[in-house]
């Protein structure tokens, strides 16, 4: 009997070994297939090497109408066609990096360069590519993200980016990185997250490396600077950028015989419109809301519009107890409880979904149960789906408060300091600064491109009027919204996740009607300031920086010296 057990144990050990060594099959590298086919077609001459001019003759042969652009139509299957032609057709999507349906002269040259691994200007059997290096990118899993990875993979066949799903939280990445099995690249959604990644020693300081790759941070929208810049050091690049505007449903406005929201409107005007468009059933349950702002609109819209901010200029003190911030939060509560045009906590829960950002509001807007909703351009990723083809919608800027602005944001990608593929990870992050990535962002409507210049000048027309989506005549609004967006600067003196937890709890009490906006802001400020004091007690290095700022006149987090750390 013991021998049977022994055999089973050995079998299990063998299976474990196989499982440990096994790697999933990878798609064949199209460069290998191409290079073999082209050299074979060139015959003896090909064995000596194929120069660019000779390579061009293949391209000219494929370009049947001679317009310099090879289309799929021209590559249509022909009986007995040469192998290189077949392989060119199979790899068409990867070579056509800008996805315009044609391989133009620049893309042909890029193809040649990508095949010429030794970089000597001649294709030879020595150019057979090594297997691509796999780069792990921790980001949210969705179809647009896969298209973004495909674009990078097409331009950098030496790498293969694969996705490790996360949902906007950072715990998984931090634990993985500390355990030494972190992704090569990971996403960061706020300045507070960046600070945490940097201070836990996970994010790579890419200032010089990215500058050497042509990344100029001044070309990036300021609204996303807090996601990549900390103490003047650069840690990554934003993949997109976003700021909120007001989506409105044209059908519901038409049925109510109301004009669409104007470009320069106030909150009073907005409330009047929203009241007329709010409908409830006999039990008082919402059938249709006039306006949905989202649960944290006090933070992203009202507090900044009323002139408040999360922290003071130096980040030494939470400033939500300032009169401006309290007035902004009160206004948010008024929208819910006094005017009854926005959902309460219960109604928010009724709309809530598992995972994702703002999906509740987006779903209500997409199913025509709210006439207006505050949201970002990225909603188009959903609204463009065939299921919502019947929707008619427009976009207006946020109504004006005392100030006309809102908090901008986005998603940045950072590099793992201990990544074994640092070069590849940096290449990926730097790729986000280039034309191809930025144009893809604008085309996908995954919010807006992170680099300013791809919305203006020669690029303006492509962004403002996408011929594939002629109904989307509101892209100028997004641009204006982003121009008015301000970044939410974190405090370096407190752990961001702790701040988020405090804000979440107090928002619950405010949205549930258990606290007024005024009281909630005072309590949030008190708790965050206590967290700052606690952090200063722990960290002498931070304390020294903090004291230096106080010496320059910054306000401390404590109200009396007795509370000082």
């Amino acid at each position, binding site marked *: 009997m013991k021998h049977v*057990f022994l055999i089973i144990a050995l079998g299990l050990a063998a299976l474990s070994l196989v499982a440990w060594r096994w790697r999933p099959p990878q798609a064949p590298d199209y460069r290998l297939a191409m290079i073999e086919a082209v050299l074979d077609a060139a015959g003896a001459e090909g064995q000596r090497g194929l120069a660019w001019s000779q390579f061009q003759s293949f391209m000219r042969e494929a370009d049947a109408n001679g317009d310099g652009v090879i289309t799929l139509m021209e590559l249509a299957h022909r009986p007995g066609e040469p192998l290189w032609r077949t392989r060119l057709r199979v790899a068409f999507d990867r070579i056509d990096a800008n996805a315009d349906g044609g391989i133009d002269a620049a893309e042909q040259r890029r193809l040649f360069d990508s095949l010429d691994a030794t970089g000597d200007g001649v294709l030879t059997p020595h150019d057979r590519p090594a297997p691509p290096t796999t780069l792990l990118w921790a980001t949210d899993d969705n179809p647009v993200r896969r298209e973004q990875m495909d674009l990078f993979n097409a331009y950098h066949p030496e790498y293969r980016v694969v996705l490790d799903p996360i949902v906007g939280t950072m*715990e998984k990445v931090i634990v993985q990185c500390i355990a030494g099995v972190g992704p090569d690249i990971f996403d960061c959604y706020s300045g507070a997250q960046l600070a945490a990644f940097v201070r836990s020693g996970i994010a790579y300081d890419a200032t010089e490396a990215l500058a050497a790759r042509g990344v100029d941070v001044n070309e990036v929208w300021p609204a996303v600077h807090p996601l990549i810049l900390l103490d003047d050091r650069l840690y990554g690049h934003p993949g997109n950028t976003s700021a909120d505007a007001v989506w409105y449903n044209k059908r519901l406005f038409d049925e109510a015989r109301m004009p669409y929201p104007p470009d320069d409107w106030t909150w009073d005007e907005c409330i009047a419109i929203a009241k007329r468009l709010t409908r409830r059933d006999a039990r008082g349950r919402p059938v249709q809301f006039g306006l949905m702002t989202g649960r944290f609109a006090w933070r992203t819209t009202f507090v900044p519009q009323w002139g408040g901010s999360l922290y003071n200029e130096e980040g030494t003190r939470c400033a939500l107890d300032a009169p401006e911030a309290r007035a902004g939060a009160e206004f948010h509560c008024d929208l819910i409880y006094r005017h009854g045009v926005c959902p309460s*906590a*219960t109604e928010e*829960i009724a709309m809530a979904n598992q995972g994702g950002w703002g999906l509740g509001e987006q779903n209500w807007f997409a199913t025509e149960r709210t006439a207006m909703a505050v949201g970002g351009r990225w909603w188009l990723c959903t609204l463009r789906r065939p299921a919502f083809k019947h929707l008619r919608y427009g976009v207006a800027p946020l109504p004006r408060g005392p100030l006309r602005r809102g908090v901008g944001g986005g998603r940045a990608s950072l590099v793992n300091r201990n990544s074994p593929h640092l070069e590849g990870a940096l290449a990926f992050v730097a790729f986000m600064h280039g034309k191809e990535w930025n144009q893809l962002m604008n085309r996908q409507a995954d919010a807006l491109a992170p680099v300013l210049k791809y919305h203006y000048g020669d690029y303006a027309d492509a962004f403002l009027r996408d011929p594939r989506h002629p109904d989307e005549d509101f892209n100028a609004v997004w641009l204006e919204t982003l121009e008015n967006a301000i970044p939410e600067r974190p405090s370096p003196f407190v752990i961001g996740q702790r701040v988020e937890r405090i804000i979440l709890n107090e928002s619950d009490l405010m949205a*549930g009607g258990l606290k007024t906006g005024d009281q909630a802001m005072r309590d949030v400020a008190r708790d965050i300031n206590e967290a700052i004091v606690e952090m200063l007690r722990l960290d002498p290095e931070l304390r020294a920086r903090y004291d230096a700022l106080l010496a320059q006149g910054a306000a401390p987090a404590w109200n009396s010296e007795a509370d000082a750390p």
Partner: protein
Amino acid sequence: MKQRSDLRVALFFLIPNFVGFSVFMLGPVMFSLGASFTNWNLVKSVPFRFVGLENFGTLFQSQDFWLYSINTLYFMLGMPVAIAGSLFLAVLLSQRLRGVVLYRTLFYLPSFTAGVALLILWKALYNPSFGPINELLNVLLEPVRAFADAVSAAALLRERGPFGWIAASGEALPFLAGLAEAQPPEWLASTRNLFALRPNAVGVDAAQWGLGARDAIIFMGVWTAVGGGNMLLYLAGISNIAPELYEAAEIDGAGRWAKFRHVTWPQLAPTTFFIVIMSFIAGLQGGFEQARVMTLGGPAGTTTTLAYYIYIKAFEEFQIGYASAVAWVLFSIVFAITLVNWRFGSRYVNY
């Protein structure tokens, strides 16, 4: 000689388990004990130092710790109901019924369904505006509302008639008005609870009385637990009871209830004892999945348990040392309660 050889083989086969246990369980547990006496923080600039019992002192002074301890204990209120339900089901399913295997499978279904899927399903069921639970409650409340409306209207119209005392009373009319406006609970959106506990401080506030997120999670927990492992343990226990005991009871003229009370229940005492101990342990360590998937510990921290608090402190706020201290306090509570159970609970185990 053979015994020694068998021992060697046994030890050989125990090695993988022992290595796994040491590396993945004993090692980290001991490591966390050491970490609880340090200020270990994932923030690199915080200098690592030995702080003795400081973490323990801090947590006992922390309001959050007490609030989340209360939440943990509150969630355990469902435990006796779940155990009684399991016993009831086990007794039913031990009868010789047609299709009993199918019933057993159906009742056990929640236990082998993916936990996260169940939690998302319950989240949808608890939707305050459109969830099926509140839809049903609204149907039931409708006649109550109509009745309260009618009575208060009649009372106001005929102040001197048979309903006159209602109008004359200072309290009946507001009560009726409240009844006419009665709404189902807001479940996961509400901080209310049966003990009127305040959401953001240790204390009681009458306005918080009602059903809310905590109770919603208890009901869900009871539903999951009734047909789970406890039911199987009771079924196994019942099948082990000697039939002669029932025969003897029948000869003595015992009815169904008497047989249950004097045969089944005492014979199941060891099983019940085991289930109570395991339920206490699971209850004190529980609440993480529900908080993570359904509520993120809210609203306002009302569904944050000690297990989720450990996660928040360690992986959101990076205070590994402090989180380890909370973990060891939780362990101590579990250990103490188990000892008490063992010491006093075993008195009731006669077989």
